[in-house]
């Protein structure tokens, strides 16, 4: 089986590659990159005028299966992923039951294989039922296919438990992913604490609630030598803490969501519950600091924190509605519009954060078009303008804060192991 992706601008930050060329694929792997190629009798995908990159990797997705299939299933989530150009997604463990043992891990992997779309990498829980008390069976989950551990959404508050989790995860070569939030300091909060929470009378979550937890995790990383990944970083001081940790040589990485790059807490005025997420949308100063951290390389990955919720749930009172927004199908458009078209972040840097950046953070295969790599490829149009219509999402849920937004930059095709999967 041969395929040529012809005449596209191939950008692969893993090998500092940026040139217009033909990408030759054979038996599901990258065979070569040629200036010109003979396409006799070979399937050709015309990529002229388009950008060709390694398939995108999302470190932070909620697939809701098992347990909340009315919000999303592994199949619908994987379909949303490939629609958005993601060939690999990491599934967070806060399902019902929690992915805190190998049987749940295997279930997720089997379901993903049946779906046959994006590659799904389960993230196991740090603690049993993510209760923050006893360690989950990390080694068994790793053997079953888990790539990292996290108690996402229910941060480990007991620092001694977190220390042990890091020590144990290090033994087993697992990255510890933390949703950084001091639950006491943020108690009852439903949005960012600041002028807008004061204006709207909604209870705020302070920047300090995130930063104090980031600082703790960095100290524990230093003490234990564990690899720590800060999920959906959202404040100026948090990125400064990570910047310093990296300078110090610690194994600390972080990700940012498209919505924290694009929106601020001003969006909450009007009480649209699709502006409610955790961490919350922050201030304009924080947003600007995140874009700077993208530019200077402090941020390793763009991750969506794709969090589907049924519209019945999102139609509740603001303080009662669940937190989270879907993101897989708008991530590229939002990232290109906000980072490249509006803030002049180089295109290669953005692609790095969608490909080799996340691959390295979790030691995943992929994220590269090096010869012999699996032919997971995303092709997109940097200049194509489109309007977000949530009714057309492949995801089962519609909870996006970007409905009606005009974005510039859209996925054209997604290939997994050389097969077109976007449909």
């Amino acid at each position, binding site marked *: 089986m041969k395929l040529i992706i012809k005449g596209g601008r191939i950008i692969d930050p893993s090998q500092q590659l940026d040139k217009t060329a033909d990408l030759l694929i054979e038996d599901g792997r990258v065979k070569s990159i040629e200036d010109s190629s003979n396409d006799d009798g070979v399937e050709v995908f015309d990529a002229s005028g388009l950008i060709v990159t390694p398939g995108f990797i999302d470190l932070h997705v909620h697939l809701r299966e098992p347990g909340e299939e009315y919000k999303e299933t592994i199949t619908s989530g994987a379909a949303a992923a490939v629609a958005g150009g993601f060939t690999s997604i990491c599934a967070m463990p806060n399902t019902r039951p929690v992915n805190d043992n190998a049987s749940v891990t295997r279930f997720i992997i089997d379901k993903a294989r049946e779906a046959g779309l994006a590659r799904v990498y389960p993230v196991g829980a740090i603690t049993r039922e993510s209760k923050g008390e006893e360690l989950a069976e990390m080694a068994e989950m790793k053997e079953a296919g888990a790539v990292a551990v996290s108690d996402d959404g229910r941060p480990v508050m007991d620092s001694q438990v977190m220390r042990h989790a890091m020590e144990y995860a290090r033994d087993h070569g697992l990255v510890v992913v933390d949703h950084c939030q001091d639950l006491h300091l943020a108690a009852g909060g439903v949005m960012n*604490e*600041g*002028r807008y*929470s*004061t*204006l*709207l*009378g*909604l209870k*705020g979550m*302070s920047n300090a609630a995130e930063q104090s937890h980031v600082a703790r995790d960095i100290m524990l990383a230093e003490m234990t030598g564990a690899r720590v990944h800060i999920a959906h970083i959202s404040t100026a001081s948090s990125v400064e803490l990570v910047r310093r940790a990296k300078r110090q040589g610690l194994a600390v990485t972080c990700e940012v969501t498209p919505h924290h790059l694009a929106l601020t807490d001003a969006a909450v005025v*009007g*009480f649209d519950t699709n502006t409610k997420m955790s961490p919350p949308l922050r201030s304009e100063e924080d947003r600007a600091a995140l874009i700077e951290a993208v530019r200077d390389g402090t941020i390793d990955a763009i991750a969506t924190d794709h969090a589907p919720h049924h519209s*019945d749930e999102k*139609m*509740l*009172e*603001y*303080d*009662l509605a669940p937190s989270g927004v879907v993101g897989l199908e708008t991530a590229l458009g939002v990232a290109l519009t906000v980072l490249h078209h509006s803030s002049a972040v180089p295109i290669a840097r953005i692609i790095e954060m969608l490909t080799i950046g996340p691959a390295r953070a979790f030691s995943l295969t992929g994220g590269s078009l090096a010869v012999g790599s699996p032919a997971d490829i995303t092709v997109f149009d940097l200049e194509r303008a489109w309007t977000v219509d949530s009714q057309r999402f492949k995801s089962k849920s519609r909870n996006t804060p970007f409905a009606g937004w005009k974005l510039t930059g859209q996925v054209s095709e997604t290939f997994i192991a050389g097969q077109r999967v976007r449909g």
Partner: protein
Amino acid sequence: MAFTRKDLLGIRELSVEEINTILDTAESFKEVSARTIKKVPALRGKTVINLFFEASTRTRTSFEIAAKRLSADAVNISASTSSVSKGESLIDTAQNLQAMAPDAIVIRHPSPGVPHQLSRMVSASIINGGDGAHEHPTQALLDAFTIREHKGRIAGLQVAIVGDIMHSRVARSNAHLLTRLGAHVRIAGPRTLIPIGYEKLIENSEGSLTVSDHVDEAIAGSDVVMMLRIQRERMTDAFFPSLKEYSVQYGLTLRRLELASSDCIVMHPGPVNRGIEISSEVVDSARSLILDQVTNGVAVRMAILFLLIGTESQ
């Protein structure tokens, strides 16, 4: 000027002209309540639903009387008797109410923003009767009406608002309204109960909003002192150590009131905790306009109902 809004959701959205239109209209309605036959036919055939998800005696009764004095049919629904307590969602509530074709819905709800959400789902006029710690526009309007009645103006006045600022929708709505009309508002209370950045709350304002470090500083030279109710449960949430300490440190006594201007008036949105945020002597003194506020509440709510749903019959 004409009042063309569908809803009254908050003070923040209102222009100076709209605020003055409401206050002027209220003035003409105040006289109705002084008549022997306290009724005019302005809203005959209109239906007003009072939908209260929080306990309230004063506001609900005030709206009910206002509607009835304008000859509207007023229906009260409280959360305990409606199907809301049986797990009905906001949108189901909205659709059911809509099906009964009311002209106005007065809503009080513990969650900020519910009136705004509801206004997008129903065609009736929505009047915010208090949404969580967000806004309580009719209270602020009746407070402004009362101040204007006694002081002849609002612009240039020094107003102190003291107490639990954080959880107070009355303080927020008054901060918007009084500063928009040119008053200088000083906020005071325990720092634990003043949200960060409160002084940046206001916009498009002729007046000013400042946060004082001490109650005495806020009250000094004030023309108006507005005390807010302190709730017992704030104590268990570690906002302050005890009610006794609160009353000494932050309560309004005759002695503390001496710091204010000699013709200072005292207001309170009620219900009053005598001896806690305000002493009985102050409540019962000639300075206190607490009952005038209640009286004026009816006139102001008549004005709001009339301006929102009475235009066709005009």
